[in-house]
């Protein structure tokens, strides 16, 4: 029971990590392309990351 929970948690963390990586990478690309919009991109990035984090945490607690 505990092992399965750990495994699920690991999977969730992998998924969340991949998602965060994608968000961060895309944001970096966008900032590189448009440095003048860095502030707005960062804000959007943080919001999306926060939403993703929320989902990941919800999954962790449910699992």
């Amino acid at each position: 029971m505990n092992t399965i929970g750990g495994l699920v948690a690991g999977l969730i963390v992998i998924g969340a990590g991949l998602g965060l990586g994608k968000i961060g990478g895309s944001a970096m690309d966008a900032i590189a392309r448009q440095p003048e919009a860095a502030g707005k991109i960062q804000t959007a990035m943080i919001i999306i990351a926060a939403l993703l984090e929320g989902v990941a945490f919800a999954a962790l607690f449910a699992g």
Partner: protein
Amino acid sequence: MAKTAFSKIVFIVLFVSLPLLGFAYSGEVKDAVQHEQADELTSKQKIKKFIEHHLKDSHDFNFITEKTGEDSHGEAQYKHYGFSLPIILWDNGVKVFMSSKFHHGETLAELNGAFYKLYHGIIYKTDAQGTISYDDHDHPTNDRPLDMSITKNVTMMLFTLALMFVLFGGLARGYKKGPIPTGAGRVLEPLVLYVRDEIAIPNIGKKKYKRFMPFLLSVFFFIWILNLLGLTPLGVNVTGNIAITACLALFTFLVTQFSGNKAYWKHIFWMPDVPVLMKIALIPVELLGILTKPFALMIRLYANISAGHIVVMSLLALIYSFKSWVAGPSFFFLTFFISIIEILVAFLQAFIFTMLSSLFIGSAVADHDDH
């Protein structure tokens, strides 16, 4: 401008609290490891127990617990440094007494013939002998009175309220003397402007942001101050408590729903520009969406702060688990590093909570001209 000012403040807070941080945690953890040494618990279990205890609310404000020796039965004796807090119980009428009556769980509190026992931070009704009966999972099955005590967390919240009142009331009074604040106001004003210009205006819009500023500012500074206090040697964990974050999320939820305009409700109950069948199918989805938003807020803040505390304390516990000259300093510096990140996280979580709140409010008050 606001950003540079902000980073300065972060560094000031960082350098003031960091030296204290390590000592505080190390004191607590050391105590935990040595605590209940007579028991058959492994040190791993002891650490886990202690961290769980730290994350929970407490009925007294305990700074340091010192092992003073052992009594004749070989049981450890402890001396607690701190102060007790009032306990308010709702159990056939209000019952108020100080938590010192429990002697840190060692004795029963007797009130008008009713006996209460403090067991693992929770107050249970017991008989005169203080018997606790357990179910299959070792959970106590005793009745619990409705606990409305002024606990450690409530004390910290009251302290934060007072602190904010002093700080921002002072800032407000400062404006009567001149247009430019002096003293602490010079630090606080950029923060207020930061919330306004970086959080409220971009998400809610220039026309409507003013109504929500008191809520957003209160929530932002409340969470931030409590997050930072959680990193100090006081050893409190207020924002990493599900009841606190639930209440905060509930307020955001209420503010969002009560400020929602016609377009907002129309988008929930009768989504425009989609087929009728879709409209009906979207109603439960949208209703669920209303609930998941504050739920995510609640979980995020709770999980982030709790996780931060667990990581810092686990790392410090490793020092006492390994008990070696190599592990000690290296884990100390690792903890130091994590603590710095935690200070950043303290701000980030307050920022994200406020940001998401204003985003939800913004979506509720938006004109939806683009649809």
